[in-house]
């Protein structure tokens, strides 16, 4: 615990697994991951009502394959892929790609968050692990401009093909940049 002036803030955020804060007791999934990858590769938390992990993007594919194939984890279902733009929030890295996983075998949910820097918005595709990631990753690419390397067909999925912006980025204006008035067909 910090000094007396920090105590109030310390109490409010206690147990959410931030760097420098006390982490909650590791659960089954966290323990299993640590046994395989060691303590250094991941930091864990309990942010969304299930166990969660902040993973490195460089070793993403082996990590995700482990989550799917390990018999005690068996996360066979990729529920959702989305991204968070943390612009103007107190975060070092602007984007985070978030994977929601579910294991039918163990009736267990898990959340993987992967920081992706603005200067180099690339991350490996997990289509080879869960084929259902195909359209989900296309949507993240469409809305945030994060490129999924190794994706079989990375095109825009919602916006028109010639749409020049990534509309869910926080620095994109709500009313757009004139696209709705100036489009040609």
């Amino acid at each position: 615990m910090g000094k007396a002036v920090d105590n109030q803030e310390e109490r409010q955020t206690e147990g959410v697994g931030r760097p420098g804060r006390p982490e909650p007791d590791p659960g089954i999934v966290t323990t299993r991951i640590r046994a395989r990858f060691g303590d250094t590769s991941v930091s864990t938390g309990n942010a969304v009502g299930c166990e969660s992990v902040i993973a490195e993007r460089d070793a993403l594919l082996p990590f995700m394959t482990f989550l799917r194939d390990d018999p005690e984890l068996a996360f066979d279902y990729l529920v959702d892929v989305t991204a968070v733009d943390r612009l103007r929030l107190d975060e070092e890295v602007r984007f985070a790609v978030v994977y929601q996983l579910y294991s039918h075998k163990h009736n267990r949910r898990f959340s993987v968050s992967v920081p992706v820097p603005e200067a180099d918005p690339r991350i490996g595709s997990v289509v080879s692990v869960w084929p259902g990631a195909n359209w989900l990753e296309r949507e993240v690419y469409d809305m945030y401009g994060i490129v999924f390397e190794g994706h079989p067909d990375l095109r825009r999925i919602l916006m028109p093909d010639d749409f020049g912006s990534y509309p869910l980025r926080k620095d994109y204006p709500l009313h757009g940049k004139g696209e709705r008035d100036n489009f040609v067909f």
Partner: protein
Amino acid sequence: MTTKVDAVVGWARKNSLWPMPFGTACCAIELMATLASRFDLARFGAEAIRFSPRQSDLLIVSGRVSIKMMPVLKKIYDQMPEPKWVISMGACASSGGVFNTYTLVQGVDQYIPVDVYIPGCPPRPENVIQALMKIQEKVAQAKAN
């Protein structure tokens, strides 16, 4: 003599409108209710909904139109044979409605000519019937050729 031909043709046209529905949102549900037995658009001769624009003379735009959908709507309008009329049903088709956002066309009348606008979100079937009667007035006054 020509005025009488115009009158006869206009009378025939206004009582046999064949609508082309362009339903993209909740307005389309109200449009379906208008066609069904309680409100019964057949009373006005407009029950023959055609899902081919080539067999239609009344385009009913009922719902949001995004900038990706607008070329589709324009193509459907262009495919309809003359003479043709357009109803813009509901707030979204007429003005963008509450969706003042980057991707939504703020009124289809920027790209296709609209004859009658229906306010409401969504409009009740009575509003649609009123709009159809307004269209009928306009059709009756049109020239035969």
